[in-house]
Structures are given as structure tokens and as C-alpha cells.
């Protein structure tokens, strides 16, 4: 097992595409790290540089504290699982699993033992004599994972391994991967563009955009304190409402003027936000911080009155789209039992203790004491 460290790593492809820019990241030994970001943001490139399949144009890559920039992928002792599995089509499942071990000259008895162990663990022991073409998508996925496992490498790199599976199987494999990590304790880096996967699986999430790391942190930390409007808008569905507003002095305090009305800034945040008084800001409000019962909204609850535009009943919860005359509509997530219908007036209480303000010029979050 080993830690992975990236120091000012950049990658420019031949065509001049700057896929990754100046990434600094430390992945601890045994950690489950997620790379999350939209397609094309450089997740795969970063992973491939760690694996050695791509050379970094600048910076240092360290595995287990050792600089590996010039080390052949074969010598890095890591496993990578690709999105399309990359099973060797001309070999049986057994041969696929044993490929790396045979290259290393592992004794046959030991290979047999490990294949037996891993194939049972992955539930593929019945499939050992089949060719990859005779397997279903889910089975191929297990074989690909199994092939990564038998070598007992320093770290696992997984490049969107679940994205070719149907929704149900994906949920199953998600749990299995988490369990696998708990059992093995090996460092894992898992790439995904699916924020649900990221929130549920990782110990930490590294959110990337346009080849840069935007924010690194535990899922809840990133969720409650997004670094900028990109992260705020990327995590969770429906995502955080980002509403253009003005911050104005209001007697002793501060108030946010939205198209729909004003929201007083809670006292603990005032000092942090005061320098922005009189300026345009972006108010970030999560749909789940709107409550039907004022008591649920905490000490900083503030009444919001508006009209319902649409109602999306999802079963356990309901998503309301609320109109904001003169501004964009925003979403609120409320309990299921409501009898609300489109066109109804509604009174919700917003928990202003969860409010975030973003600077519209930099899109960065304006620092304030952590959520109360």
C-alpha cells in the first residue's frame, strides 16, 4: 500500500491541449479518493499520469514517497480498471486474471490460490474458463476488478468503471467497491462524473474543472462549504440555487436583496460579509434549506413567500420550482405529504444559517465562519 502525491503536475498533449494544469494533491495511504468533474476536465489524464500511461509535462508524481515520473508503468505496482474493462479478448477469464502474476513469475500454486480467492470474492469462480466475449457487462466488470485485485497492488486506479453498467447494477457495484476498500484498506482513486457516486463512495472528493483542482475535501465538507459556484452547482440534484443579488447595509445589519425579497444576514456572518456591502453578489441557497415548518429552519429561519411554478413529486420528497418575479425561478425540496399544486401561494422558511455568498467576479465563495 502506498500514498500518492502530485506536486504541480501539468499535462499538455501534442495538439496543444492543456489537459491538466498545476495540480497539487496528496492522497493518503489507504484512502478512497474520488476525482469528480464534468467530461473533459482532465480526470482520466491525471489518473493515467499516476499509472504511467501518460507522461507529465511538468511536476512530480510520487507513489509511496518515491518519485515515479520516469518509472515504467510496469514497475509502479498499481492496477488500473478502465471504463470499457479492457479485458484481453483472446484469453480465458482465468488467463486474464493470472496475466500479471505470470509475468512476474509467481509460482503456479500461488497463482491458483489467489485466483481461487479473488474469483470467489468477486463471484466469478464459475466463469473462469469463459472468454470475455461470453460474459455480460456486469460480469466483465467483475473480471476487470478481479484482475486488478489478484496482483495485490500498491493502489487501485479506477477510471469510471461503473458508467457502462445499468442503474441497478451500478448501485450494487458501488456498495461492493466501498466494502472492498474497507476490507483491503488499499489506496483507491476512483474517477467519476457522477456526483451521487462521488458523494456516497469516497472519503474525500477532488473536484476538477478545466484541468484544475477546484476543491478537495470530505463529501459533506464539500457539500456544506463549496469553494465556488461551480462546485455549488455541480453537487446534489437539484443543485444549489445561485441567485444574483445585492448585499446592502440594513441598520446595524446586512440584508441580501433578491428579486423575491430580502433576507437578513445572520449575525455570525456579518463581519465576514461587511466588506461586500453595496455590491452585487451571488446568493447560494440549497433547495433542502427551505422548510415548510418554521421550527425546522433553526434560529436564523426567515420567511419566504412565493408562488409555485411546478411540482415534482418524487415519492419520498417533492421538488418545487418557485417563481421569483423579476428573477430566475429557484428550487425547494420539501417533504412528500404536501398538497401543493402549481399556481398556489406558499410560505417557506429559509435557514439563513446555511447561506453562502459568492463573489460574481471570481465565482469564489466569500469566506465566512463555517455553517451554523
Amino acid at each position: 500500500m502506498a500514498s500518492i502525491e502530485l506536486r504541480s503536475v501539468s499535462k499538455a498533449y501534442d495538439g496543444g491541449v492543456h489537459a491538466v494544469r498545476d495540480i497539487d494533491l496528496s492522497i493518503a495511504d489507504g484512502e478512497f479518493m474520488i476525482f469528480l468533474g464534468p467530461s473533459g476536465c482532465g480526470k482520466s489524464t491525471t489518473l493515467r499520469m499516476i499509472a504511467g500511461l501518460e507522461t507529465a509535462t511538468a511536476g512530480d508524481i510520487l507513489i509511496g514517497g518515491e518519485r515515479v515520473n520516469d518509472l515504467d508503468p510496469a514497475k509502479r505496482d498499481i492496477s488500473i480498471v478502465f471504463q470499457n474493462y479492457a479485458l484481453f479478448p483472446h484469453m480465458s477469464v482465468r488467463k486474464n486474471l493470472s496475466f500479471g502474476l505470470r509475468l512476474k513469475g509467481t509460482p503456479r500454486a500461488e497463482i491458483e490460490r489467489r485466483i481461487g480467492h479473488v474469483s470467489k470474492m468477486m463471484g466469478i469462480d464459475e466463469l473462469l474458463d469463459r472468454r470475455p466475449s461470453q460474459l455480460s457487462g456486469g460480469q466483465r466488470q467483475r473480471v476487470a476488478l478481479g484482475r486488478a485485485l489478484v496482483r495485490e497492488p500498491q493502489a487501485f486506479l479506477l477510471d469510471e468503471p461503473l458508467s457502462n453498467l445499468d442503474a441497478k447494477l451500478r448501485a450494487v457495484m458501488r456498495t461492493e467497491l466501498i466494502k472492498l476498500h474497507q476490507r483491503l484498506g488499499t489506496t483507491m482513486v476512483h474517477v467519476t462524473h457522477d456526483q451521487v457516486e462521488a458523494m456516497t463512495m469516497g472519503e474525500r472528493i477532488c473536484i476538477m474543472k478545466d484541468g484544475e483542482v477546484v476543491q478537495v475535501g470530505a463529501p459533506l465538507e464539500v457539500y456544506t462549504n463549496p469553494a465556488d459556484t461551480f462546485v455549488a452547482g455541480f453537487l446534489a440534484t437539484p443543485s444549489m440555487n445561485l441567485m444574483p443579488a445585492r448585499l446592502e447595509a440594513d441598520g446595524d445589519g446586512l440584508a441580501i436583496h433578491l428579486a423575491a425579497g430580502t433576507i437578513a444576514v445572520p449575525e455570525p456572518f456579518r463581519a465576514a460579509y461587511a466588506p461586500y456591502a453595496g455590491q452585487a453578489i451571488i446568493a447560494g441557497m440549497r433547495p433542502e434549506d427551505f422548510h415548510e415548518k418554521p421550527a425546522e429552519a433553526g434560529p436564523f429561519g426567515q420567511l419566504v413567500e412565493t408562488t409555485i411554478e411546478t411540482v415534482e413529486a418524487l415519492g419520498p420528497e417533492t421538488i418545487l420550482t418557485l417563481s421569483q418575479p423579476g428573477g430566475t425561478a429557484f428550487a425547494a425540496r420539501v417533504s412528500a405529504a404536501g398538497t401543493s399544486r402549481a399556481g398556489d401561494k406558499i410560505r417557506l422558511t429559509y435557514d439563513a444559517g446555511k447561506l453562502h455568498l459568492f463573489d460574481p467576479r471570481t465565482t469564489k465563495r466569500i469566506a465566512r465562519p463555517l455553517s451554523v
Partner: protein
Amino acid sequence: MRIKPATLLRHGILIAFSAAILLPLLWVLRVSLTDKLTAYKIPPEIGHLSFDNFIEVFTRFDFSLWFANSFGIALATTAISLPAATMMAYAAARYRTGGAPLLVTVLASQMLPPIVLVLPLFLLVTTMVPIGGRAAITLAHVAVNLPFMAWMMVSFFEGETKQLEEAARAEGATRWQAFRLITVPVAMPGILAAGLLGFILSWNEFLYALILSTSKSQTLSVGLASMETQAGVNIAPLAAATLLGLAPVLILLPFLQKYLIKGLSLGALK
């Protein structure tokens, strides 16, 4: 059941084209089975059928020698150029080796009239091996076939095999091991297709074989041509010899087609 006019038209066109392709072959078949006098009759007559011409090809002409020469040269050409072309194609697909411009140049060289290359090739070959031998012809065929085969195989090494190779390398294989254990076996249908095509090209080649051969090293195509001139045109035995010479190609073609389709489905066309 009524047949639609469109269907009728389509089949009419197809039949016409098939006939245009098949008729010369059928003509040759007829000529090869008739005696020398009937052979020239127009409109064609079948007359008395016999295999005399096929026997005469072996008794009066050096058909077996030509056949053996052609076979040996085609086999040697393929054996030499296929491994080399495989590695060249791999290098072109993986490394910075001139990229698309190089490949276009290779293709362009194939479009030159063969006669343009005769003199330079003659000079080059004679500096390396004795003129007139089978080795000389083989060498010329290698020189012409190798770039073409390499060009053809480049696309087989793009796409799927690239990722498989990366997987192999992450599993601990060196570049060479990944090439030998993964890429070559996976691309084998494409490689075989290129090999078969190289064999057929060498088998059919006429010009270089004519320039570089003596009567001992004549290939089939050169031998067939010589039948036309020695004592007038021996049209009936010539037809028989042509059919015999065609046989290996006809046997190989279905395999070529099968491997070519498999090979192409590996590469960029997938």
C-alpha cells in the same frame, strides 16, 4: 407473387455486372477444355471436351517449375515482409514516426506506375543478390509489398489494441511483452489478411519478375507470358495453365475476406 419493377431492375444490373466479370473466365474455361481448332471458333463452340490441354501444360511446358517458383517466391516474400510490416505498422500507430504525411507518401508510392520503379529496383537488387535468381525476385517483391502491407495494418493497431496494451502494461508487461502477448494475437486476423494479400500480390506480379528472372527462375506469370510467344500463341494450353495458376488465389480469397473483415473491425472503423 408479383416482382416489383425496382427489384427487377436491380437484379438486371447485378446480373449484367456478374456476367461481365464471369464471361472472360468462362471463356477461358471453355478454351481450356476444347482442342486447339475449336478454341478459336466464334461464336464459341464447346465441341469435344477433354483434359488434354491440362496434361500438355505439364508435359510440353515447365509449368511445375513456374508454379514452384511462384509459390516459393510468394511464400518467402510473405515470410520476410509480414513480420517486418507488422512492426512497422505498429511503430507508425504508436510512435511519432512521421504520422499521416508518411502514410500518404507510402500510399502515393503504390500509385506510381510499376515501370517507374523498374530501373532503380533493378539496380538496388543487383547490388545485393545475384541477378536472375529467385532471391532477386523475392527481394523486389519484398520492397514493393512491405510498405503496402505496413500501410494496410496501421489501422489494426489503433483503437482497441491500444487500450488493451495499456492494460497489459499496467499489469506489469514491458512494451515488447504487451506487443507480443496482447497486440499481435488480438490483431492476428488483420495480420493474416495482410499476409494473404501480400502473398497474392507477389503471386500475380509480372513486371519485376520478368525483368529479374532467367528461364530457371521464371514465375508463373512470366511463364504464362512466354507461352504466348514461343511457337505462336498456344491459346488452349495457355487457358489451362491460367486456370491452374488461378487456383491458389481462389482458394485463399475466402480466407482473405474473412480475416480482412475481422481485422478491420478491430481498428478505426469500429
